[in-house]
């Protein structure tokens, strides 16, 4: 890429991680020869990080009940079941107290389950995963979950696939895939088909005690949750984006 100027839009797509690999590589070599532009890009990145950091904790704040009420304010559609579900979910979570959760519903359940599975198995040194070859393991998990279970490629984030295992869900089987970084940090990807929902949610974030962070999303086939107690939110977000892109393409 030689032109003196390149589309400004590409620079921004680069800052936002929205360029494909080829264009990203081209842009990086273009920037390498233009320190002023590279500095501008770096400054844009810093801007984003400052805003994200400043507002990161807001997502963990409990929702004021008045806002949930605003949502239920319209009696035109009857929602006794929702009220009951909200009550039960809230009760269960207060009892568990593992994670500060975002909102009632399947989303918070998958966060709980993924965080628990991570806590139990990521700490395991000897047998964190089933002793099976990758292909065989994924085939077996796919069979048990009745959907195609894949292991997204996370090498770009420095994570190698370690293996996985079958887990009991609430009403159906679930699966846990595990990845490991060079310094031994572990990231797990939880697959819970029982958390599927009609519409894809996009990436959502939840965090809890002792550095536990979870990025999750739900689609019409399954709920997915990436958990780690060792990665920063930024790092886990990058990993989650990678997994999300591969699984939702």
């Amino acid at each position, binding site marked *: 890429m030689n032109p003196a100027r390149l589309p400004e*839009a590409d620079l921004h797509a680069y800052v*936002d991680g929205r360029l494909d690999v080829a264009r990203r590589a081209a842009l990086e070599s273009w920037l390498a020869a233009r320190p002023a532009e590279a500095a501008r890009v770096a400054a844009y990145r810093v*801007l984003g990080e400052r805003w994200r950091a400043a507002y990161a904790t807001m997502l963990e704040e409990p929702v*004021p009940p008045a806002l949930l009420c605003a949502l239920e304010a*319209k009696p035109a559609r009857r929602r006794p079941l929702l009220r009951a*579900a909200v009550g039960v979910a809230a009760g269960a979570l207060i009892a568990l107290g593992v994670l500060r959760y975002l*909102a009632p519903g399947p989303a918070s359940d998958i966060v709980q389950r993924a965080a628990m599975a991570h806590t139990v198995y990521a700490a395991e040194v000897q047998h964190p995963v089933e002793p099976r070859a990758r292909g065989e393991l994924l085939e077996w998990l796919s069979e048990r979950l009745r959907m195609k279970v894949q292991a997204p490629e996370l090498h770009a984030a420095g994570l190698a696939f370690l293996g996985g295992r079958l887990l009991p869900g609430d009403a159906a089987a679930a699966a846990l895939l595990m990845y490991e970084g060079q310094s031994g940090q572990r990231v797990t990807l939880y697959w819970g088909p029982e958390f599927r929902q009609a*519409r894809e949610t*996009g990436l959502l974030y939840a965090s809890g005690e002792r550095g536990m962070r979870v990025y999750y999303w739900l689609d019409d086939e399954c709920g997915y949750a990436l958990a780690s107690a060792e990665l920063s939110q930024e790092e886990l977000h990058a990993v989650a*984006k990678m997994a999300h892109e591969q699984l939702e393409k």
Partner: protein
Amino acid sequence: MPERCLPGVQSQEGIAALIPHLRRYARALAATGAAPDDLVRATLERAAQDLKPAHARADLRVWLFSLLHETYVASAAGRDMQGAAAPGEAEPGAAAFERAIVTLPPLQREIFLLVTLEDMSYEQVAKTLDIPIGTVMSRLSRAREKLRLMLLNEARLRQVK
């Protein structure tokens, strides 16, 4: 739990899961002024009123943020901000960069925050704000450049002192 299969309930739960995101956005948008939760409440009331099964199938987040955007623009705060050079008020304690955002025109502020905080794609931002994607790109570029220069100046001033 068969009740979860009801599309209405599912969308309402979907909306509930997005409330923290709406609150964060509203707070960042007004940079601590103008009662952000009031903006969210008005948005949720409209959402509860307008919710149709179609919204559950489409992008719920884009729909909710577009409701918030409309509410914001219609609100007195939104109107005031659109006045020529009237910079918004921020709390004295807010960080310099948070104060910086109120000097941006409302549309630039919204685009910058949807991309930065919500990690929306440019297409989603265009849909949310009901503007062409070219406008998203040009305003995003202006917003970032303005914020960059403002924070750069501020850093220089601090060094001089």
